[in-house]
């Protein structure tokens, strides 16, 4: 007892961080600062260049974006694209789930998945578009087909490698309590592999989004509506550069929103809460 230092003698046992320290601990704030710096750099370079046909200023892009949204033209294109994306993404996820489940339940299924992913994952989805056009014609189905292709293999690959890295102990625990087959996958493998699965979902989403925009650029109007990619391409043909920038801005904005609102929150209530990711 005599060697114990009285608590008053310590410099710090526990004290609240300063306002500034707490502020800087917020990653969203740090990222917002980065975005602001980029915006300022963009704005000043564009003003310096003073050639709106090459580089539009950020402020002019915003105005053009707002006009497009208000007039409904750009908004409609965004909605068309997102609807198509969700269809392709959803279908791709469902197929990836089936593929990985089959791969986990049998060795031949495992070999099948590994062979297919190594064959198709490196194949750019957009390269299938010409073939898809011949098979399915000029319509949504062709675009959904290539989007599904872009999502399926990335998600299946990540999920599968996540399943395979589930610890042997956890597998034995699951079987110990009588879990086999689909119940084992649902109650042990999927939650245990969740960090990899979320990564797969993010990669799949990014692949799907860029494939969709590219597909729309190559062949824009599907059943007379057209999406964001087509909006960009069409505007370029008419030298409506502000609209081109507004279209690109919309693509980036949606990417940021999905990442920071949807995936970040999925991670916060799952893998980070469970201590499986920091």
């Amino acid at each position, binding site marked *: 007892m005599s060697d114990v230092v009285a608590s008053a003698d310590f410099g710090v046992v526990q004290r609240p961080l300063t306002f500034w320290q707490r502020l800087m601990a917020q990653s969203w704030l740090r990222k917002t600062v980065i975005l602001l710096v980029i915006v300022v750099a963009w704005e000043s370079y564009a003003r310096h260049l003073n050639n709106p046909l090459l580089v539009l200023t950020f402020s002019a892009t915003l105005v053009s974006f707002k006009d497009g949204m208000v007039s409904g033209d750009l908004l409609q294109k965004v909605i068309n694209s997102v609807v198509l994306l969700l269809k392709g993404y959803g279908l791709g996820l469902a197929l990836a789930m089936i593929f990985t489940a089959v791969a986990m339940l049998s060795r031949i299924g495992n070999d099948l998945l590994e062979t297919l992913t190594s064959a198709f994952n490196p194949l750019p989805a957009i390269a299938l578009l010409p073939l898809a056009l011949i098979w399915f014609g000029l319509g949504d189905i062709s675009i959904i087909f290539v989007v599904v292709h872009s999502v399926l293999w990335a998600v299946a690959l990540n999920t599968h490698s996540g399943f395979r890295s589930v*610890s042997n*102990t*956890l597998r*034995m*625990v*699951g*079987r*110990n*309590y*009588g*879990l086999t087959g689909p*119940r084992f996958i649902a*109650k*042990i493998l999927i*939650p*245990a592999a*969740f960090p990899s699965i979320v990564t797969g979902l993010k990669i799949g989403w990014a692949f799907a989004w860029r494939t969709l925009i590219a597909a729309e650029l190559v062949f824009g109007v599907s059943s007379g509506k057209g999406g964001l990619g087509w909006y960009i391409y069409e505007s370029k043909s008419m030298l409506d550069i502000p609209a081109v920038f507004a279209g690109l801005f919309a693509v980036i904005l949606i990417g940021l929103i999905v990442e920071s609102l949807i995936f970040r929150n999925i991670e916060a209530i*799952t893998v980070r*809460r*469970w*201590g*499986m990711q920091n």
Partner: protein
Amino acid sequence: MNAPLKPSPLLQVQGVTLQYRTEKHLVTATYRVSFDVYGADRFVLLGPSGCGKSTLLKAIGGYMAPTEGSMRLKGEPIRSPGADRIFVFQEFDQLLPWKTVKQNVVFALESSGKMRGRQADDQAMRYIEKVNLTKFANSYPHTLSGGMKQRVAIARGLAMEPDVLLMDEPFAALDALTRRKMQEELLQLWEDTHFTVLFVTHSIPEAVMIGNRILLLSPHPGQVKGELNSDGSDPTDPASGKTLSERIHATLFADRVEEEVAPHG
């Protein structure tokens, strides 16, 4: 304490040879091992690394089939993993990280179809209380210390009220102080419910403290070297003047010059 003279053993292992394949070899882990475990036994499998004690426990758990011999639980041959033999592992990741302490126990009860709903909740809380973790019932495992995680695993195993609890070096990854405390707590729990436990360890002091019966295994491949009773006090044998630990040590390392296993605890 001597082995109770019951007519039929709870777990009967007869002439069990276990082999497993690695990339390049077929390894014999144990050779014709036999022993009987009776109800409320604290049966310890003791031996150095490579004596196949963990492999033996896996086989009893139903995770691998013996190449020779038979294993029977209550007279029924062991064929696959089941909730009548619950494992407690050494690794801390045996808890499901996505479930709280209470959910981990409830998960075990519900997945195995033993109990549902309120009944499972009550049973879970009863056993969580037994290991003094009531305050942490709603914590996620990653917020707990190693010793607390092992207590959750023990609570989960005991809540299942299995025929036999299979403990595979459950305290080996803990620091010495915590390990000591956990050993005492395990004995207290046993005083409380008299569950049957099969305990694997390579630590002689732990075996002497935990077990009422100790099976000594020799390495490469594991064979039975002897069986001893223990009352936990490590008594001195009047004939030889040696303590139980010393006799175990002499038996296990009789044919070796060097002593490579340092006593733990």
